[in-house]
């Protein structure tokens, strides 16, 4: 075995790859060879560290030095200063906003301090394209323990006692789901991994697949053993090319090592996994639609029962679990259900991964124990709102969820508390919005999404969401009427109670939630024809402050509608009748004389 004095872990997740981390790794590698250090320093590509906002990121071990926003051209200096002379490159260290001192070690950075990594344990730690690194982290030991020492029912029992609930949205107890499938009699059963992460702004599953693909494969095999299935499918979005590639590599390696295929660990247990690509349909995240799509058909849901555990893929008993759910399974088997159940709240055990995005300083992927408050997430881990703006709302559950406001900052986050607050856990997208975001516009945005993604099978969803969207379009363009709010609520409740699948049933949630918490904003749009956040273009008016205007005519010369007139060196005026509200004048004015209201 080879030993290296220094290990360099460079993030190869989607975020960092988009910021040239591939070139950085190549440059590091070349500089290391140039200086003859290739037997002493090893560069490893890993999955996502989570701190996507500061990408590309890398960590140097054994010191644990965390470098961020590293550019490919920084490679020479890092090799020279750190790897040869042994001192960290100060300018690339993390600096906390309030402190002047640089933070050297990763574990001392506020963003990581409050986190607890279970599902993401191996992400950012191992090379996802090398099965031996996974095995070195006790990988595939849980599977060995299950197939050699435990009966299927004992495995199911452990998962049940751990309290693990589905991480894809609904929060159904995983062990119970497995037990249903175990008890269904059939000649063939299936295990399906739902990696169709369609919630816009959520990227938890992608990061797990990119950073720890074997963790998912091992858990699927364990599930296969537990329910008596010999075949598994991973249904993954085609929009995630890196994740698909790493899954393919991982499956190939696992087969070569005999960890997938026939007679695993010398037992009678046989299990293999194939990949199926999603083709861009949000509804396929719904389990019955996902099954239809896996069979090569249009991804349209069907009524349940029968539940997939009884009649699923190709009409055989099937369990469908989300990526993050599977990522927890191996750790529960290895560390015991007591360990897992010791984390979290009474009815929500373990941790939850959130994709933190939007108007927040530290955008990235975080994993926290259930029961952590929104305040800790936003202000401690997330580092607060950029530019000193005021927190307005956080959307969880994506287009199926709702928003949390200032009053919810201190409730412990778990499945039940989020539902009680009018939102839901969802898959884990957490989008932060500040005072500059218009909540009516956000509601319209989500509804436009669900309306477009409605598969069209059932009328409440197909037609109802369309009518709701038309009303919201009217409100945001200043044509709203007082009845619109009532009509929205009536439509929303009808769609909720009569749609076929979860997509339709949950689609009105963002509208209901914003009406509940931000009714005044809706009313301002309808009665005053004003958008308080200055977002809805049709309700804005641009004005020139005569005291600040120097009369340079720059705005007037560039106005596409010729709406601005005036004499040179005298204040100009915008004609509101002609103004098309493009905002061009405001971005051009060098004196900050133009404002919108």
């Amino acid at each position, binding site marked *: 075995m080879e030993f290296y004095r220094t290990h360099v872990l460079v993030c190869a997740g989607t975020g960092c790859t988009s910021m040239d981390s591939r070139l950085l790794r190549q440059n590091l590698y070349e500089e290391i060879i140039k200086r003859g250090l290739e037997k002493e320093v090893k560069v490893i590509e890993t999955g996502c560290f989570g701190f996507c906002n500061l990408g590309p990121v890398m960590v140097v071990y054994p010191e644990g030095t965390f470098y961020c926003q590293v550019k490919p051209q920084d490679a020479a200096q890092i090799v020279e200063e750190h790897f040869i002379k042994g001192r960290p490159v100060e300018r690339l260290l993390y600096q906390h906003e309030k402190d002047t001192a640089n933070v050297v070690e990763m574990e001392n950075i506020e963003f990581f301090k409050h986190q607890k990594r279970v599902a993401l344990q191996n992400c950012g730690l191992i090379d996802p394209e090398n099965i031996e690194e996974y095995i070195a982290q006790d990988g595939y030991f849980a599977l060995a323990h299950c197939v050699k020492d435990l009966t299927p029912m004992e495995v199911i029992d452990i998962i049940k006692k751990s309290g693990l609930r589905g991480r894809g949205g609904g929060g159904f107890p995983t062990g119970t789901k497995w037990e249903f499938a175990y008890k269904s009699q059939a000649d063939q059963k299936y295990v399906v991994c739902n990696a169709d992460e369609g919630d816009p*702004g959520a990227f938890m599953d992608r990061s797990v697949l990119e950073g720890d693909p074997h963790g998912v494969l091992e858990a699927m095999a364990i599930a296969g053993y537990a329910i008596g299935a010999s075949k598994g499918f991973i249904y993954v979005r085609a929009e995630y090319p890196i994740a698909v590639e790493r899954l393919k590599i991982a499956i190939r390696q696992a087969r070569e090592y005999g960890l997938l295929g026939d007679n695993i660990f010398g037992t009678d247990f046989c299990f293999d996994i194939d990949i199926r690509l999603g083709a*861009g349909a949000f509804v396929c995240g719904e389990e019955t639609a996902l099954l239809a799509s896996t069979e090569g058909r249009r991804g349209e849901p069907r009524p349940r029962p029968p539940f997939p555990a009884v009649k699923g893929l190709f009409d055989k008993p099937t369990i469908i679990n989300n990526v993050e759910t599977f990522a927890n399974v191996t750790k529960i088997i290895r560390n015991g259900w007591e360990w897992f159940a010791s984390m979290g709240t009474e009815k929500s055990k373990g941790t939850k991964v959130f994709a933190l995005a939007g108007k927040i300083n530290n955008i990235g992927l975080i994993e926290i124990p259930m029961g952590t408050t929104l305040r800790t997430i936003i202000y401690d881990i997330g580092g607060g709102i950029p530019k000193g703006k005021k927190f307005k709302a956080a959307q969880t559950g994506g287009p199926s969820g709702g928003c949390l406001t200032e009053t919810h900052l201190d409730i412990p986050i778990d499945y039940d508390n989020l539902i009680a607050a009018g939102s839901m856990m969802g898959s884990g997208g957490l989008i932060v919005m500040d005072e500059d975001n218009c909540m009516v516009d956000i509601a319209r945005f989500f509804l436009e999404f669900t309306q477009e993604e409605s598969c069209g099978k059932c009328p409440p969803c197909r037609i109802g969401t369309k009518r709701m969207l038309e009303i919201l379009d009217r409100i945001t363009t200043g044509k709203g009427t007082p009845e619109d709010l009532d009509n929205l609520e009536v439509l929303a409740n009808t769609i909720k109670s009569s749609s076929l699948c979860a997509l339709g049933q949950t689609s009105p949630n963002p509208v209901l939630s914003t009406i509940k918490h931000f009714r005044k904003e809706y009313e301002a749009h309808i009665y005053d024809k004003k958008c308080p956040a200055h977002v809805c273009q049709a309700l804005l008016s641009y004005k020139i402050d005569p005291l600040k205007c120097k009369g340079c005519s720059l705005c007037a010369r560039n106005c596409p509608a010729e709406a601005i007139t005036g004499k040179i060196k005298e204040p100009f005026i915008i004609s509101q009748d002609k103004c098309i509200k493009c905002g061009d004048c405001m971005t051009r004015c060098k004196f900050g004389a133009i404002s919108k209201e």
Partner: protein
Amino acid sequence: MSCQCGSASKDERFVKIDQILDQNGRDESFLIQNLEQIQHILGYLPEDVQAYLAEAMGIPLSKVYGVVTFYSLFTTEPIGKHKISICLGTACYVKGAGEILAEFEKQLKIKVGETTPDGRFTLTACRCLGACGLAPVLNVNGKVFGRLTTDDIAGILAQFE
């Protein structure tokens, strides 16, 4: 056009389709996978290709057409030389992706979903590239551009001839 079954000069597109089918399989459950790989090679899925595939896989053309039109990944129209996908995921949207899209429409003089008359650019919107740390982001031919402002757009377009 007369039937050319069995003639030596078989459309070379269909030869490629045969290769894909040999590799993946002709069972209906491989339909989406086959369509995806065919589109990858041909750029789009015209009607004659769908008809050939239906015949070769032994399923009705209506079923193939139903699947092609259901999923947003598939297109029945040829696309431009460079494909611009603007992310309209939530994280990008709250950070002004709508303005970025409007600016592209303005500069290219086309609407989202359309191709410029010279065939240079196709403008599309997509839902979340998963690069939310760089919001707002877009993707041109697989290359990601992040932290965009409307001022960046002319420069990005100039990079692609």
